[in-house]
């Protein structure tokens, strides 16, 4: 888990899995690279086409609410997003993201404005807003999730141990 730097894209509260990977594109779920071209399209039309690899999402409360579709965090990761910062995350989205190795950071995103430069050091739990030169405190992940994330996700964990070795 190296230090990552990127530009922030702001999103509001209650960004649902329908915003991220809508049902009208249900048929693309078996073609994730194609689905990723539409990531978050229904929340911000400019995001998928203009974001650069390494950028961050900075959202409000309850990011990822709704469906269990793992395709939602999968296409965020596939599009090259370094991580999602939000005031809070919905439960299933949270679990899915950790399982597939997408970094989620719970923190006060009011301290981040559109297009601010962000630096995230996940190992030491430090988020810096380089544009405003402030450090933003984060809520640490539970140990069990850090273990999964460190091993590269749940599939890699099972590949290595052939069983759960989490507790």
């Amino acid at each position: 888990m190296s230090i990552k730097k990127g530009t922030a894209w702001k999103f509001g509260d209650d960004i649902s899995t329908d915003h991220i990977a809508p049902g009208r594109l249900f048929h693309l779920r078996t073609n994730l690279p194609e689905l990723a071209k539409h990531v978050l399209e229904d929340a911000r039309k400019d995001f998928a086409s203009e974001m650069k690899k390494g950028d961050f999402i900075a959202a409000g409360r309850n990011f990822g609410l709704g469906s269990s579709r793992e395709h939602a965090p999968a296409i965020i990761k596939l599009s090259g997003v370094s991580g999602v910062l939000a005031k809070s995350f919905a439960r299933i989205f949270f679990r899915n993201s950790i399982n597939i190795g997408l970094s989620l950071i719970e923190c006060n995103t009011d301290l981040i404005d559109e297009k601010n430069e962000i630096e995230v050091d996940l190992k030491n739990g430090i988020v810096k807003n380089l544009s405003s030169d402030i450090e933003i405190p984060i809520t640490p992940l539970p140990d069990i999730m850090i273990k999964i994330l460190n091993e590269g996700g749940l599939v890699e964990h099972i590949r290595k141990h052939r069983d759960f070795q989490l507790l």
Partner: protein
Amino acid sequence: MGKTLSEKIIGKHSSKEVKAGDFVIAKVDVAAVQDGTGPLTIDKMSEVNLTQVKNPEKTVLFIDHAAPSPRKELSNAHKKLREFAKKTGSILSEAGEGVCHQRLVEDFVAPGNILIGADSHTCTSGALGAFATGMGSTDVGIGMALGKAWLKVPETFKIEVFGEFGHNVGPKDLILSLISKIGSDGATYKALEFCGKTIEKMDMSGRFTLCNMAVEAGAKTGIIASDETTKKYLAMRNREEDFKEIKADNDAVYEKIIKIDASKLKPTVSCPHTVDNTAGATELNNIKVHQVFIGSCTNGRIEDLKIAASILKDKKRNFNTRLLISPASKDIFIQALQEGLIEIFVKAGAAIVTPGCGPCVGVHAGILGDGEVCLSTQNRNFKGRMGNPEGLIYLSSPATAAYSAMLGYIADPGNI
């Protein structure tokens, strides 16, 4: 110290005493995926060479979200599920058999079970006194192969309901009001345990509606103690031997207790684009409705259809309002046919949709046009949910939906 329903069930499945906040590896009794999440589950399993499932007769693959398939990409996804079922001996629920959550409560989940499902409304089965929760494709795939999953034991909100519902007010109005009160993330990670005199008197259909929507407040599950009503339901499904009494201890520890007087509730509607954005049906008379959908895992049961039929009998839908009705499962469809409900609906001008999820999830059979309004008995009204981000979705009970279909605008069925 007393235990909540979730603590009891998870403790039994991890062979130790547990309390809220503990992390455990728990045995899984039933695992399920559907056609939107199942293909990815199969891919994830094959990535780590997991080719078999632990309990084939309790592993179920549902073809319900795009059923029957409207496009070749989805037909190929269905092929993949059928081949996997054949190879592993798992059960396949074919197009037309119904919505996964309804099929799970009918034939697969028993009180005291742990169910994991790759669908967020898996919490529906909690109404049987089971611990049922939605997870993603990877979690469920590993669960299917190993027969276990990692869980955090949730803290519980006790939702105590008393009082009699008013005329044409019911469980859907109760759960929409509760979500409005606590917010779309008000119960994130928590279990909602429903109890009290009103719940004790409620039929299983209403209990399923409540638990189905627990996730709309962010909850990990909704759960209800099993009792005589549960027993009768299982007996009706020829599964009396699956019954087991399970209830929370009197001195169980709850994070919060919320009391609701059902007699004070009114027909309630969620307005676009979040479930917690509610208003009374009477306040929305100015909203013209282009489409009404009665169905889904929330409100597509026989009791829901009977309410709708009682309002639509010998009546017609409004000329400007199309009406879609979908029984939640094959058996509900058969019963609705036998009881003459389908004839009432078709005479009223309804289009009958194959049991499944299509309209609710925006895949097919009921996609909205730009600027169109749908009043639906489903559980979600997020932007884009019904296949078009320019559509506007309102949520209500079957009574409000049926009455509004007749009048062409959102109307309070308490006035009938």
